[in-house]
């Protein structure tokens, strides 16, 4: 088991090298000159050349990339081109904000999505099933930013119940209040995904022989559902949740923009726009590590749910 974890952790390294290389190259060959973005149109040639040399941008691309990786390995992710702050400080400052709404969204998706999926599966083709699956289809198709704007119009503008944007961290109550709309907007897609996944995965086990056996033992229907059906249907659901969580962390860009949420998604977009290469790289590396860790965690969770998988890990 430990050997397996170690192996998986080591596998993050080539993934990181690949991701950073691709991102670095794309950013570097994209039109737009970081030096000009920093100094503006009106700086003198000399000043531009001097800064270019200071930033090492006058060297060949591959050398620049090598230098970057070398510094990064020593824990130095550089300073932002745009506002001269330390990249990792900034990323670590922003990431908890993203984590907050991503965790909220995944929690909401689980709490609502799994029960809805179970009920739909148990009452297949009933009105409830049809209604929730139409709802889920709606949720999957609805872009987060559009959902966000609709929520703002209803809950902020018309009903005046919730703030329309921003993260208010003055008190826990205000923070939770400012989280509600972004969390709902962000969770729409994953909630729908998880509900649909739970339903189809439940339907697969619902007619298995061991379910009839369980029922014949005389245990309650609730126990049958949770212990025998859900537990066996859980693997695909965990996979979906793991993937969704990764997507939520990295993909909250639109939601963060719509709600002016100071998270890492917005940081990346703003940094790309201003060709702030160190900031984009730092954020991407960070997200890449988080994503890989979540995936690893999901794989390990399988073992707890399914003894067959656990025994496979043992051999490795």
């Amino acid at each position, binding site marked *: 088991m430990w050997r397996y974890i170690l192996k998986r952790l080591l596998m993050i390294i080539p993934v990181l090298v690949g991701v950073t290389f691709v991102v670095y190259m794309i950013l570097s060959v*994209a*039109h*737009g*000159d970081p030096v*000009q*973005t*920093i*100094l*503006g*149109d*009106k*700086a*003198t040639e000399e*000043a*531009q050349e*001097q*800064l270019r040399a200071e930033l090492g941008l006058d060297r060949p691309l591959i050398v620049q990339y090598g230098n970057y990786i070398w510094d990064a390995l020593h824990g130095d992710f550089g300073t932002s081109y*745009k*506002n*001269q*702050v330390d990249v990792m400080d*900034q990323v670590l*400052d*922003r990431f908890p904000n993203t984590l907050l709404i991503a965790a909220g969204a995944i929690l909401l998706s689980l709490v609502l999505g799994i029960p809805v999926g179970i009920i739909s599966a148990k009452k297949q083709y009933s009105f409830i099933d049809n209604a929730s699956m139409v709802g889920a289809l709606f949720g999957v198709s609805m872009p987060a930013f559009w959902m966000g*704007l609709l929520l*703002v*119009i209803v809950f*902020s*503008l018309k009903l*005046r119940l919730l*703030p*329309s*944007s*921003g*993260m208010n961290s003055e008190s826990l109550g205000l923070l939770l209040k400012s989280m509600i709309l972004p969390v709902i907007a962000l969770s729409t897609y994953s909630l729908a995904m998880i509900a649909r996944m739970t339903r189809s995965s439940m339907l697969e086990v619902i007619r298995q022989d061991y379910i009839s056996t369980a029922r014949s033992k005389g245990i309650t229907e609730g126990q049958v559902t949770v212990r025998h059906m859900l537990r066996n249907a859980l693997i695909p659901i965990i996979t979906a949740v793991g993937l969704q969580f990764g997507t939520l962390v990295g993909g909250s860009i639109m939601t963060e*923009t*719509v*709600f*002016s949420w*100071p998270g890492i998604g*917005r*940081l990346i977009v*703003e940094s790309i*726009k*201003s*060709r702030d290469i160190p900031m984009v790289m730092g954020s991407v590396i960070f997200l890449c590590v988080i994503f890989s860790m979540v995936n690893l965690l999901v794989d390990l969770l399988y073992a707890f749910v399914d003894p067959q998988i656990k025994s496979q890990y043992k051999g490795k």
Partner: protein
Amino acid sequence: MKRILCTLLAALMLLSLVACGGNNSTGNSGGGTSNEGRELDDELVVAVASDMTSMDPHVGKEISAVVVTNNIFATLLAKDEDGNIVPYVAESWEEVDDTTIDFKIREDITFHDGTPCTAEDVAYSLNRAINSAYVAYIIDYAENAEVIDEYTVRLNLKAPFLGALVNLTVPFTAIVPKDLVESDPDGFLAHPIGCGPYEFVEWKNGDYCKLKAYDGYFLDKAKVENITFRIIPEAAQRTIALENGEVDLIYDLAVNDISILESNPDLQVYQNESVTTWYLALNTQDPILSDVRVRQAIAKAINVQEIIDSVLYGAGTPANSLIPPSVIGYPGEDMPYFEQDIEGAKELLAEAGYPDGLTLDLAVAEDVTRVAVCTMLQDQLKDIGITVTLTTCDYSTYTFRANEGEFQMMFFFWICAAGHGDYQMYSLIHSSQQGAAGNRSFYANDEADQYIMNARQTMDEEVARENYRQLEAILDEEVPTVELLYTTLNVGATSKVENFIMDRAGYHNLETVVVYK
């Protein structure tokens, strides 16, 4: 030419500013908006579109930074609402000769840490700006600044310069405390200290920035105790936050939201003509556009008023020069405007060898309104037989490609931050400024260069104006650029806000603003 200019009390200037301030509000003054008898609020929340870049006034030249730092730092001189130069940190000044100006510094100024502001600080700040790669362009007409005595600073110019005084009102020439900046540069960046109306409290990157009124400010203490700048990138969200009462002021009000605010009795719109010119740059080195007749035809195809009325909801005025009217050196309203003349344009194209029309590309940086303007231009140019291919890309890519001369027609805007014509004409027209420096038409004309230099190297505004008039006559004939319009600056506010004074360049100073509960 030796004249002593004014010893007006700067406080008086502020009073006059306050008095004029309200005039711009075109908002709804319908029932219930009177603030008489209401209690003053001690916090003003301002929504801005993007995060501050740097708190160092000699680095952060972007509007998003200046709207904040302009309240923390003070400049040597200031401009009143009519564009007149008035005292600020300097209480008076004397032009010793063509290239030497002496400034007398007020003796009652302290920085936010309590230390007095002296000639040492002022000279250091100006030299720091002169040597800053970021903002030097606004002040590098000066060789250096030197201390004459404890409260006198001398600015030595390289040559006489039209903007010698007005450039010192630009926030990038702000005064910083010498000892603090030298001893702890990082500390200064993390916690900027100036001598302006507000002191810095906290900046949470991507989220907000907070300021507090400075008790020891050398003019009247700012009216609102606390200011919070909140970063809300989406225009629609800013309007909603205002409607909701979550913010009191929004800079960069989207033009299509003006009517929403005007129809709401609790909200108001401040409008003023800006110093921003929107124009088309025509690449004069392009094989097709190098023919002046094609460029003239393009100018004749455009109906600017139609664009203003539809896309901008009326928020703009047609332009007849790259220099905006409120700026030193504006050639005058009597100068000709480009007028739509479809038949004339078609004839010109036929003469140029395109009787059946032609295809040109028009590039624009991603922005809803500007792209909409270009779509209308596309439509108008179609009427004279020019098929326009629209290219939109992000701003960095756009400027990069424009600097390389890859486009034929380019939509640009230029904010006259300095407040004098040279800032527009030298950058956009002078042959030495081709490419990244601003002349994306790649235009070169010796005669035009001469007029630009004549206007640049004088301190006499009338001489400058006369030269710009001559220059404008050449440009109207040669059409390296087609000036379209001067934008209107739109700021939204709740009706609880009073005495907001608009800066035409968008560098609003909030010391006069009051907000009611």
